[in-house]
C-alpha cells in the first residue's frame, strides 16, 4: 500500500534481571501509518514467532491509554515523541519511511528490568499500600449526597486521580524520583473532605515508603510533568511538600 513504511528498530533486549542487556537491530516492512506503535511491535513479534524466535517482551493491555501497563522509552522519550499520550496511543503516522527508532525500557533503580522492555513496578504498589487510601471498610458509610464537594474541589481531585501509575514520571526524571506519582494520590485526598482525617499521616507514610523503595529526590526539573501522559501537574508536588512540612510542624501528627 502506498504510504506504508519500512523502519529500522533498535530494541533493548535482556534475558532476565541478572543478564547483560543490549540493543538488537530489527527491520519491519510495510507498516501502515494508521497502525499503532504497539501494532507495529505485534507485527515484528509475529514475524519472530513464525521463525520460532523469542518475541520481544513488552508490557501492554488496554491499548486505550488508561491501564498504565505500557511503557517504553522511544527515541529517548517516555511514551514517545507526542505529549500527553501513552505508547499504546501513539500511531505510526508520526514516523517517516526509513526512520530508525530506538526502543528502551524505563530506566530506574526502583524499576528493575524483568525481561527485554518489561520492568518491575512493585515499588509503586508498596507506596500505595503504605497510605494511598482512605481507611473505610465496606458498609456503614453515609449517603453519597451527605458529603458535599464543590465543583472546583472535585475537578482538582479528578485531575490528580487521573494518574495511571505507568511510571513515566520516574523514567523521565534524571533522579528517578517518584514525587509526581506520590503527590497525585496525596493531592487527590488532600482536597477532598473524606481525605482530611488521615491527611498528615498519609503523606508521611507514603513519602517514607517512597524513600525506602530507592526512588531519587525531586529537584524541580519538571521533566515528569512534561512526559506524563495524563498531564498530572507539578503543583501536586507543591501540595505534597506543603502537607509534608505541615505534618512535621504539627507535633500531634508526627509518627510515633
Amino acid at each position, binding site marked *: 500500500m502506498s504510504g506504508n513504511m519500512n523502519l529500522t528498530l533498535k530494541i533493548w533486549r535482556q534475558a532476565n534481571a541478572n543478564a547483560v542487556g543490549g540493543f538488537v537491530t530489527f527491520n519491519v516492512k510495510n507498516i501502515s501509518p494508521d497502525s499503532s506503535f504497539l501494532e507495529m511491535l505485534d507485527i515484528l513479534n509475529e514475524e519472530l514467532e513464525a521463525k520460532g524466535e523469542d518475541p520481544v517482551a513488552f508490557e501492554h493491555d488496554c491499548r486505550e491509554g488508561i491501564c498504565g501497563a505500557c511503557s517504553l522509552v522511544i527515541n529517548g522519550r517516555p511514551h514517545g515523541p507526542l505529549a500527553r499520550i501513552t505508547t499504546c496511543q501513539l500511531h505510526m503516522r508520526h514516523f517517516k519511511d526509513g526512520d530508525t527508532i530506538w526502543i528502551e525500557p524505563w530506566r530506574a533503580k526502583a524499576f528493575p528490568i524483568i525481561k527485554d522492555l518489561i520492568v518491575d513496578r512493585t515499588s509503586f504498589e508498596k507506596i500505595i499500600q503504605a497510605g494511598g487510601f482512605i481507611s473505610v471498610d465496606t*458498609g456503614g458509610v453515609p449517603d453519597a449526597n451527605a458529603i458535599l464537594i464543590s465543583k472546583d474541589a472535585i475537578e482538582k481531585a479528578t485531575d490528580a486521580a487521573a494518574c495511571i*501509575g505507568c511510571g513515566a514520571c520516574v523514567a523521565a526524571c534524571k533522579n528517578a524520583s517518584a514525587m509526581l506519582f506520590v503527590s497525585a494520590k496525596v493531592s487527590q485526598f488532600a482536597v477532598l473532605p*473524606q481525605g482530611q482525617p488521615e491527611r498528615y499521616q498519609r503523606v508521611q507514610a507514603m513519602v517514607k515508603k517512597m524513600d525506602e523503595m530507592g526512588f531519587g529526590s525531586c529537584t524541580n526539573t519538571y521533566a515528569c510533568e512534561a512526559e506524563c501522559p495524563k498531564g498530572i501537574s507539578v503543583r501536586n508536588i507543591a501540595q505534597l511538600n506543603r502537607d509534608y512540612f505541615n505534618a512535621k510542624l504539627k507535633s500531634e501528627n508526627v509518627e510515633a
Partner: protein
Amino acid sequence: MIKLDSKIPKGPIEDKWTSHKFNMKLVNPANKRKYDIIVVGTGLAGASAAASLSELGYNVTVLTYHDSPRRAHSIAAQGGINAAKNYPNDGDSIRRLFYDTLKGGDYRAREGNVYRLAEVSNSIIDQCVAQGVPFAREYGGHLDNRSFGGALVSRTFYSRSITGQQLLLGAYSALSRQVGLGKIKMFTRREMLGLTVIDGQARGVVARNLVTGEIESYAAHAVCLATGGYSRVFFLSTNAMNCNTTAIWRAHRKGALFANPCFTQIHPTCLPLHGEQQSKLTLMSESLRNDGRVWVPLKPGDKRKPGDIPEAERDYILERKYPTYGNLAPRDISSRAAKEACDAGKGAGDTGQAVYLDFADAIKRLGKKVIAERYGNLFEMYELITAENPWEVPMRIYPAPHYTMGGLWVDYNLMSNVPGLYVLGEANYSDHGANRLGASALMQGLADGYFVIPYTIGDYLAGTKFQTVKTDHPEFQKEKDAVAEMTKKLLSIKGKRTTDDIHRQLGRIMWNKVGMARNEQGLKEAIQEIRDLREEFWKNVNVPGSAEDLNQALERAGRVADFLELGELMAVDALDRKESCGGHFREEFQYEDGEAKRDDENYTYVAAWEFAESGNWNLHKEHLEFEYLKPTVRSYK
C-alpha cells in the same frame, strides 16, 4: 445428575434479599481468620470482594496475571455506573432500575438476582464516595447524573470519561490497604491455569508464575473467580489484549457449568476497523449518544462527504425507528440498526462499514464549552486514533464485540454448581440476561464484590464440613502435572502458524457466523470450521521459547487453546436457541420490521452446559420464572 437450583429465596421480591441475609448462617468473628479464601482477578468484582472479605476477617489470597491489581480491564470503562438514587427527581426507583435491567436483558435473567442488583446499587455509590472516588458534582456540591441507553431516567453517576478507572482505583485502594496491613496475601504476575476439586469441593487453584514459569499451588476453603469476560474470542474486540477465558474455562472443564455462552454484546459505538494490521478495537463511550445523533446517507452508495449531504438526504436511523428512545436505544438494537444500514449499502466513509455520530446540532444548541466539558477527552481520543477532527467532521463508528453476558452458571449466592466455587462480575452469567444496559457492568461487579459475596460466602463456610487440605494433597500435584503437560505440548509442536494467525482466523469465523446475526447454516459451518481449526492448532502452531521464564507467546497460546473450545460452545448454544433475544439474533426468527422475535414458550430458560469432553457438552436447563414482570415484546419505539 446435576440439578440446577437457583436458590432464589421465597417471599415478596422486595423482601427476598433482606430475609435471605437474615436466614443465612454467620461465621463467628473469631473463626473467620481460620477460613482461607482465594480471589482470582482484581477488577471491580475481584478487588471489592477481596477487600471486603479481608475486612471481615477472612484470610484472603489474591492472584492476578497483571503486575498490579490496578491494570484490570474494569479500568477502561468510561461512561458511568447506574444506581437507583433518584437524585434528579425524575421518577427513578429500585423497581424501575429492576424493570429496565430485566427488560433490557430481554427477559432472560432471573428476577430475584436483578432485583437485588437494583436494591444494592445505591450502597455502591455511597461506598465509592466514602473512598474518595471523584464523581462529577453540580455547583451546589451534590452528585451529578447523566443518561444511558435503555433508560428514560438519568441514573448514571460518572467521573468525566474515566469512571471505570476511578471506581477501580477506589476498590484497589481498599485492597491495597488490606495488603499493607498484612491481611491479604497478594500474588501478582500469576495466571490461574487449573482448579483443584477435592471431594467435590473447590479447594484451590494452580497458577503459573509468569516470571519464573513455576507452576504453584494455592489451597483454600473457597475460591472466587472474578476473571472477566471472553470477548477476545472474536480476536478483535474492545477488551484488553490479555483478557481471556482461561480461568473460567479450566473451571468449566472441572465441572462448572457454562451458562448462555452465546449471549455476547456487540457495542454500537466503537471506532471502525482501519485495516489488516489491527490488533484491537477501541470503544467510544455510550454516553456520547446523550448528545450525538446517529445517521447514514439516505441513498445507498452516496459517497459524498458528510458535510455535503443535506439534512433531507440523511437517515437518522435510531430516531426514525425508535422515536421514544431515539439515540439512546439499547446497545443490541443500536448495533443491529447500524449493521442493517451498512448491509443496505448506506454505510459511511470509504469502507462503508461505519455510521456517523454527529455532534453538530449539540454544539449549536449547547455551545462548544459544554460539549468539551462532557466529552472533551473522548473527542481527543477519537482524533488521536483517526486523525479526523470530530468538532468539524462527524465521528464514524461501528459495532464491535465488547461484553459477554454469558459466563459460569451461579445460583443466587453466586456459587457455581461446584460447591465452594464462586463466580463474580462479568465472569458469571447472572444479571444481564441476553443484553446488558450501559453503565450496569460496573454496578454488577461492585454489587457482587462489596455487597453480595461477603454475606453469601459465610453461609457456605459456616454450614460446610471441611477436611484439612494443604497444597501437598495429591490433587494439586495431579492438576500441576496436567498444566505442565499442556505447556510441554504447546512448546513441542513447532508448526508453521503463529498463535495470533490462528486466533485471527477464529475471530473471523466468530464474527461472521456467531456475531451480530446468526443462522442455522452458518452456525453449523462455524462448529465444523472451529473444530478443524482447533485440530490444526494442536498440530501446526509454533510457540517459541521455554516454560521456565517469562514467555508471552506461551501465555497467549494457552489462552487461544481455550478460546478454540469456547468458540465452539458459543456456536452450539446459539444453534440450540431457536429464537432471537437481546444480543442473540437468529435471522430465522424476526418480525417483518426486522425486530427480534423471542419465543417465551420454548426458550425461557438458562442454557447451562456441562463439559463432557472437548467438543461434547450436555445441556441442562434452568427455567426462568417471572412473577413480577410478565415478559412482553420489548419495544423501544
